[in-house]
């Protein structure tokens, strides 16, 4: 099988999966399995979407949310991975933070909102903060777990070739060896950040989440679904981009 035909097969299967999903959904609405008004049929979304595009709300929401999303994702991922790596690699730090982590970890995104308001006000920074928090923990644990399961032999190899210090271990072993785990965390975070966009925009910052809640308050379910699919589209794009980067970084896994 040539690479082209293989990835074509993959693509085809993916399309089949989506067709089944939308088919079942359409059927569920048409056959009345879902009460009217709760979920519109996918076939009826076109006009609502066109209207949003025409009045510019769609483009504006995407622009705003992408800003929160990307900022929150980058900040949460970098900090989470960093602290996770450090806790995984430095026993003292791990012990010192063990209790603190357990106190802070379960605090829900919604409960952070008052602090976001307090520290950042009702603005983009607050929304970014809430997204960053949710992404932070995922990357923290992914990084921590990845460091914990590094083959100890690799540290010895590094030490035997002059990289036994903290920095040497970090750059020559910890980072490359935990890369698969880090990237798995990053990927989970890519989706988590979109899930958090709605919670983040709870406090009045415009964007897809705010628009979705607004539509939901007005029982405009077609718009809710349009924005849900918009998030799906944006997520699919970021995730596909990520997969390309991943393939380059982890080429050695073959």
């Amino acid at each position: 099988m040539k690479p082209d035909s293989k990835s074509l097969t993959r693509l085809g299967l993916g399309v089949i999966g989506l067709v089944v999903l939308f088919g079942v959904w359409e059927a569920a609405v048409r056959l009345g399995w879902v009460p009217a008004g709760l979920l519109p049929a996918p076939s009826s979304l076109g006009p609502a979407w066109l209207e949003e595009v025409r009045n510019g709300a769609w483009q504006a929401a995407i622009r705003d949310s992408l800003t929160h999303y990307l900022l929150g994702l980058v900040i949460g991922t970098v900090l989470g991975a960093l602290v996770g790596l450090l806790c995984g690699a430095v026993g003292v730090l791990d012990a010192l933070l063990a209790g603190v982590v357990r106190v802070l970890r379960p605090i829900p995104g919604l409960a952070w909102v008052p602090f976001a308001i307090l520290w950042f006000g009702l603005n983009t920074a607050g929304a970014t903060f809430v997204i960053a928090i949710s992404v932070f923990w995922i990357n923290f644990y992914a990084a921590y777990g990845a460091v914990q399961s590094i083959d100890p032999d690799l540290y010895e190899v590094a030490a035997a070739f002059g990289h036994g210090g903290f920095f040497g271990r970090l750059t020559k072993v910890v980072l490359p060896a935990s890369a698969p785990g880090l990237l798995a965390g990053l990927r989970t975070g890519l989706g988590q950040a979109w899930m958090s966009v709605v919670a983040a925009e709870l406090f009045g910052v415009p964007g897809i989440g705010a628009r979705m809640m607004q539509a939901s308050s007005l029982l405009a379910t077609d718009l809710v679904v349009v924005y849900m699919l918009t998030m799906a589209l944006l997520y699919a794009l970021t995730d596909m981009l990520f997969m390309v980067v991943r393939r380059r970084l982890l080429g050695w896994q073959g």
Partner: protein
Amino acid sequence: APTVRVGYIPVLGSAPLFVMDGEHWLKDAGIDMQLIRFQSGPQAIQALAAGKIDAYVAGVLPLLQARAHGVNVKVVASAAIEELEVMARGPLAEGLPETPSQPIEGAALKQRFDDFARTSGRKAKIGAQPLGSVPDSMLRYWLKARNDLDPAQTADIVGVDLDAEQQAFLAGAVDAAVLREPTLTLVRHRLPQARILATGHDMMPGQPGSVLAILNEDAPDRAAWKDRFLAAFVRATDLLSHSPDEAVPYVRGALAGGMLPVAIVQESLRASASHYVSDPASIVESVTKLQDFEVQSGLLHAPQPVADLFDLESYRRLGK
């Protein structure tokens, strides 16, 4: 015994439910009531649309949206009117009396916002709930229809969750907020320098608020409980308006989950006593005004006749 699932939001407007329950009036009438708490009217509407609740006690405006989407829900009683007030803090509250004496209107109000903008270099921020909620519509109505101020020019209105709104106000992230009891009393205690910028009456005389609405009220199974339930609800409303102190234990237990000091609950119930009005006919006109206002401002796309939202007959049959 029939079970009635009632969706409500945790504000004093829902207090009649707790009184009915506490006084065992429903049990005596052979009805089981199941209370389901929601964070906002719009959220409860979704449960209504899914048929997961039978009755609704929250703001009236989300019901307009529900009807516009084909949900057959009707208001059978009002619970409270003139609930929402605008509270200000910091520069925007400067010079206001501790207890509101006379309304600040028109030019005086404009002057206040202008002064604020001049001294702080930005527009005032006012917290409300998301577009389509009663607080948001009332705020806009107050500014635009009552005082001829363009909301967009006068202030930044931030529509957020109830909790976030309160927290934003406490943290000083907004300069004013549209609040209702018991939050008003609580905030007064936490932030003694906060002042009322507009009372419920100032915002709109007879301002509609919480109502009791029933889903598919003509369905055969409703007959088993509708009238008796309504009677108990109205009786509770009367009690709240005449003897607020008697309601303190019920409201403290159910609404506040026992979390608030008795004194606070008492103070806020006393402050609200005059707002408990049960006749649905008394809010038809104000709801019509608000619906027109929502249509004007493009919030409501498929307005239904307001008269269809109300079932005035059941209330009248109670002989009040």
